[in-house]
């Protein structure tokens, strides 16, 4: 009886060990990416398209045989822009074996940063999250990968400088949503205003930005040479409409990255001809990457959403995020071999040099020091039908941007 009991116990132990090992074995089968979004609250204007682009690109990679035999799996869930829910999703996906995370929500990403640093998994923060996360030494596992809001503001001003024969004496209005995101570029703008001798005035409107009439009456009276608009979703539409209503020339309006084809249609395609925006990825379908997705994913009926969205700006941003992350995975697998871990992926990301996507995005170089990827962006202009580039890919005033980033990162280190 005793012997039987002992055998039973050993059997149970083996069974338990096998069960415990199962997730780890499963984790080796596919490389899991936790691609979480706010599908239901604040970031709804971008979440669907961005997520679709991410998932379609991973499907494309899988359809093409994976990378070094490794297939990728997207874990997609809604965090509703709530940090608590984001942390819950993070923990769950960690248990499921995810090694790359992206939340496309600044409050959620900021809440996850300490955990990602501690757990040594990669947190992608393209176009959201902490601006100072570009400082790789302080944030070794956080990767903004694309031009931060600081770099975007700098790029827009450089465009004005290059096309208008300098910034000296110009009047620049920064019309922004009254949130940390809207105020984020102000330190860079203020420093550049001092350096370049232009006049800067900030105009804030309350969130969510559905009513801005009083602000724009004031902007009109200020008579700015250029207006930066810094909002997202429908507040951008309201900004452009109010600017036009107040007689501001659309070609003098310069937008943060969050202005898309859908916004222009909502404003009125012909109403906003001339509006400019900064962009970090080429929109549209006229690119081999997007053509491959259409050919191998949508023709096979494996698209993650409506085919009509393919090529939209936010869709392509989602694709670009995965292009960079999978490039990091490829380099990591080549150097270290499977199974891929957070530490290996981090090292792979930091090996990316001049990633050439044939113009889909600027060349990306990520180093242990620079997690922004170089900070290049370009300016494009709405012609009534599409966004047309009016500048080359370039990084601007990175000395000022890095000074701000390092100062902010130093505060983070001190607070730890």
């Amino acid at each position, binding site marked *: 009886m005793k012997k039987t009991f002992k055998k039973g116990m050993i059997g149970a132990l083996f069974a338990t060990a096998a069960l415990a090992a199962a997730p780890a074995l499963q984790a080796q089968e596919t490389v899991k990416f936790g691609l979480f979004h706010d599908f239901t609250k604040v970031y709804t204007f971008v979440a669907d398209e961005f997520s679709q682009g991410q998932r379609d690109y991973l499907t494309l990679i899988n359809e093409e045989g994976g990378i070094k035999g490794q297939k990728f799996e997207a874990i997609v869930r809604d965090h509703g822009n709530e940090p608590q829910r984001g942390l819950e999703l993070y923990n769950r996906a960690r248990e499921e074996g995810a090694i790359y995370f992206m939340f496309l929500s600044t409050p959620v990403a900021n809440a996850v940063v300490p955990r990602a640093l501690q757990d040594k998994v990669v947190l992608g923060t393209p176009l959201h999250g902490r601006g100072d996360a570009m400082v790789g030494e302080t944030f070794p596992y956080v990767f903004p990968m694309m031009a931060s809001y600081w770099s975007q503001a700098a790029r827009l001003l450089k465009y004005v400088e290059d096309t208008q024969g300098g910034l000296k004496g110009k009047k620049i209005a920064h019309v922004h949503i009254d949130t940390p995101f809207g105020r984020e570029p102000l330190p860079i703008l203020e420093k550049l205003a001092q350096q370049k001798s232009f006049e800067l005035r900030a*105009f804030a409107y309350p969130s969510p930005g*559905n009513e801005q009439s009083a602000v724009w009456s004031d902007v009109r009276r200020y008579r700015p040479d250029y207006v930066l608009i810094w909002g997202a979703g429908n507040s951008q539409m309201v900004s452009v409409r109010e600017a036009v209503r107040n007689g501001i020339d659309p070609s003098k309006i310069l937008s943060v990255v969050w202005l898309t084809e859908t916004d222009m249609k909502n404003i009125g395609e012909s*109403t906003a001809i001339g509006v400019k925006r900064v962009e970090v990825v080429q929109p549209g379908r006229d690119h081999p990457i997007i053509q491959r997705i259409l050919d191998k994913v949508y023709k096979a009926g494996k698209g993650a959403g409506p085919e009509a969205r393919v090529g939209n700006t936010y869709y392509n941003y989602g694709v670009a995020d995965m292009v960079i992350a999978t490039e990091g995975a490829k380099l990591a697998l080549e150097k270290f071999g499977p199974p891929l871990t957070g530490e290996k992926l981090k090292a792979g990301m930091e090996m990316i040099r001049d990633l050439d996507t044939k113009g889909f995005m600027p060349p990306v170089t990520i180093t242990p020091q620079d997690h922004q990827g170089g900070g290049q962006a370009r300016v494009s202009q709405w012609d009534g039908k599409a966004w047309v580039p009016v500048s080359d890919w370039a990084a601007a005033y990175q000395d000022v941007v890095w000074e701000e980033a390092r100062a902010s990162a130093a505060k983070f280190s001190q607070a730890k």
Partner: protein
Amino acid sequence: MDFLFLAELFVNGLSTGLMYSLVALGITLIYKASGVPNLAQGAMVMLSGYLVWAVVSLLSWPLWLAIALAVVGMFLFGLATERWLLRRMVGQPVIMIVMLTLGLDIFLRGFVPGLLGAAPKRLDLGIGLAPIIVADVFVNRAYLVGAIGAMVLIAAAMLFFRTRLGTKLRAVSDDHVASWAVGISVERAIGISWGIAGVAAVGAGTVWGSVQGVDWTLSALLFPAIAVVILGGIDSLLGVFVGGLVVGVLGSVIPGYLDPIVGGGTRDVVTSVLIVLTILFRPYGMFGREDIERV
């Protein structure tokens, strides 16, 4: 002082305030008949905007037909809300009914964009962007149309409460038990008030949707609407009108001068202060009825 700037802030504040009144109207209509402050009115405005957009954009039907269908749809939605949600709450504390409307608000805010798409959508009423310029004061054409719409709807609501049905609704608001005793169907009356509030939401959703696009942020109009009903008096249609004007003007003029000094964000502060001061010093608002209870 730039008086033209002040005039422009004032005029645009008036029209913006009346646009808020359009949202607040539904809250007052329901309160007048059932004594329930409806916290789902913002989400009902959002739902209405989505309905009009869906008929125009997905079915390619004309705007007038879309509005008519939305009116019918939202009236039925109001009736259904009373029948399936509120009727079950008879005898429950009012606070639980308020929580129910809050739950409905949260549900609609998640469900409707999830079903019909969360990205902002265009709702074009054909109102041009060019402002009406009077003595160098720019008047927003779309807001002016919205303000006129608000006045028409408030006037219609005032007339409605003078009709036989409206009188019944007022009686129900005064005393449910006494209304039952004289043969008034309280459930039907409350259902109708929710239905009419749904109709008012179509007005607000259409006008605001054309100004800012249709998405979840339409539901955020609840906050200024709450300020309007608290200031004007939650059971007063005149209060909806005057409260809207005051909230709109103060929310335009004060931030117009303060924001450049403090760096922005004062409009929500103005609205909040209005709510707090009104509740502290005149809890029934400017035109609300002061109920005196014997203890």
